């Protein structure tokens, strides 16, 4: 599939393609940081009445979300070290090592090939 000419993208694809522009990740991260700052600041405009006491702390969900995600990633990296094996670990008669059978597919590229 990699040898096909580049497709003419429709409007939706072109919108998504903005993310592939040089510098786009930095811009996206910047926008995300601003959005985070905004929702964190929103904590001051209302009074919390959370049932769980610690959730009443300023920005609890923000800190907790950031910490949980970071923990999950590092724990997953650690777990991978323990449980990772070759792709054909269970032999060649395992779906992980098999090719997907063609009868259940309808391969087609964007140019109809």
């Amino acid at each position: 599939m990699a040898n096909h000419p580049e497709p003419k993208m429709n409007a939706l694809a072109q919108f998504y393609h903005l993310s592939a522009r040089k510098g786009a990740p930095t811009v996206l991260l910047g926008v995300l940081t601003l959005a985070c700052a905004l929702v964190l600041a929103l904590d001051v405009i209302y009074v919390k009445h959370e049932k769980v006491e610690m959730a009443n702390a300023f920005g609890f969900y923000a800190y907790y979300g950031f910490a949980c995600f970071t923990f999950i990633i590092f724990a997953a990296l650690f777990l991978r070290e323990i449980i990772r094996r070759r792709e054909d670990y269970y032999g060649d008669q395992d779906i992980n090592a098999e090719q997907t059978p063609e009868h259940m597919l309808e391969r087609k590229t964007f140019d109809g090939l």
Partner: protein
Amino acid sequence: MGFDQIPAAFYFFAAALAVPFIPKGWPRGALMLAIPILVAYNIWQMGFGTFATMPFMGFDLELMRVDSLSRVFTLIFCLAAFLGNLYAWHLKDTVQQVAALLYAGSAIGACLAGDLITLFFYWEGTALASVFLIWARGTQGAYNTGMRYLLIQIGSGVILIAGVVLFYRESGSIAFENMTLGSLGTWLIFLSFGIKAAFPLLHNWLQDSYPAATVTGTVILSAFTTKLAIYALARGFAGTEILIYIGAIMTLFPIFFAEIENDLRKVLAYSLNNQLGFMVVGVGIGSEMALNGTAAHAFVHILYKALLFMSVGAVLFRTGTSKASELGGLYRTMPITATFCLIGAASISAFPLFSGFIAKSLILSEAAYKHYDFIWLILVFASAGVLSHSGIKIPFFTFFAHDSGKRPAEAPAHMLLAMGITAALCIFIGVVPNALYSILPYAVDYEPYTIAHVVGQLQLLLFALLAFGILFRIGMHPPEVRATNLDTDWLYRKMAPSVVLTCARGVAIIWTYCADLTLSKLWKLTERLYRTHGPEGRMARVWPTGSMVLWLAVILAAALLVNFI
């Protein structure tokens, strides 16, 4: 006999019988779409009550009990069957079509079962019908996976009927109502439900089998078995406290496995396991609000999980792979599928205005209200985990991230239509929550769109996204690599055969030693006998007559002597 006297499942079974005789193409497809609509309509308009009873071996079986709990599950099962069949419109495989109808019918029949014996028959029906969706892949790997799946599923049914027999002996009743854990019978029934609900350590049939099914089979599979188990738990064990802790563990452990899994359909299977955890917690709390949360979450979960399986399935359908290490950048030629996948991801992550937001919060709020603070913290943690593997990983590594160079065509029109309807429902339920709340088992007194809830949820999700952005930029996010990650299936796929082989070798060594020892003793005995009795042996010598007479005389003398003494 009125229509309300015909059990809902029988419509599906009749259609399954008819399908082989109906021409392939639109007539068959139309039947497969019409049946779920017809059944949903019947259930919707017939009102609550017990319909269709049948005598069986001295018992009165209740084949169709419609109440507020069974109705909501039946309706979502019908909707899932409709969407799954629409997604599979292109299919020409009669076996898969029959299996899909029998499977959906069995799941619906089980939901409407008013007694435990009826439940058992439909319970086994789901196992037998669904395995053909795995075997339809047609490879040796799928056959092996299907056999493992079938053993576990049938095993669950056997445990169920054993539990039912014991329960009947204890209570004298086969009614499928709320039970209290205590006796062996109730524990067996609980275990049986737990296997299908993918409790921790009993879960791996799910991640083993769902990625092995066909493109369309996985979408169908994702809807029924596990949610039937959730319904059964809600019906039979609501308020059983141990479920709160089981559910909390279920929300946690799949997150880490999903994060490092390469096959995206397996990632979704882990994600499914994690979502079941929220529902199990709701059942464990057992209040009206929590059971509403469980039913609502099952309803929306079936939709967004099907949507995610559909979008990854469409990619597999066009490219031949669902492995993240081989995908990326597909938005260029599959932008509509990418959009639907993003809607599914936003729904499962519980962004405001999407379906997950208005359902999951019912369970979290009730956990906090009932002062399960630690459980609540776990559930919030798991919510961030859902974002990591289903909210980010699935769409990002499939449609964005690096360019894999693949330029597949957009999904076929019927798949896009199925995804479009599902995506629209995910948004509709998120925007108009009362549409779902109105069909829940109990009256809902809950407002999801409060400023505290919206801001809190946005903080959780956006800051988790920020963590992803930073970790990805600094290269700390787990790369997608081809691998097999061990799970509990290792116990019966590697360890158990290894233990059996080791034991067999030990027995063989002992047997050989004993046999050798016996043979050598026998050989020595033979040799000794040969020496004495063989042709050259002393006992075989030709004795002279004189010698014999002499010995005879000695014996006679001895006899005389003894006689005189």
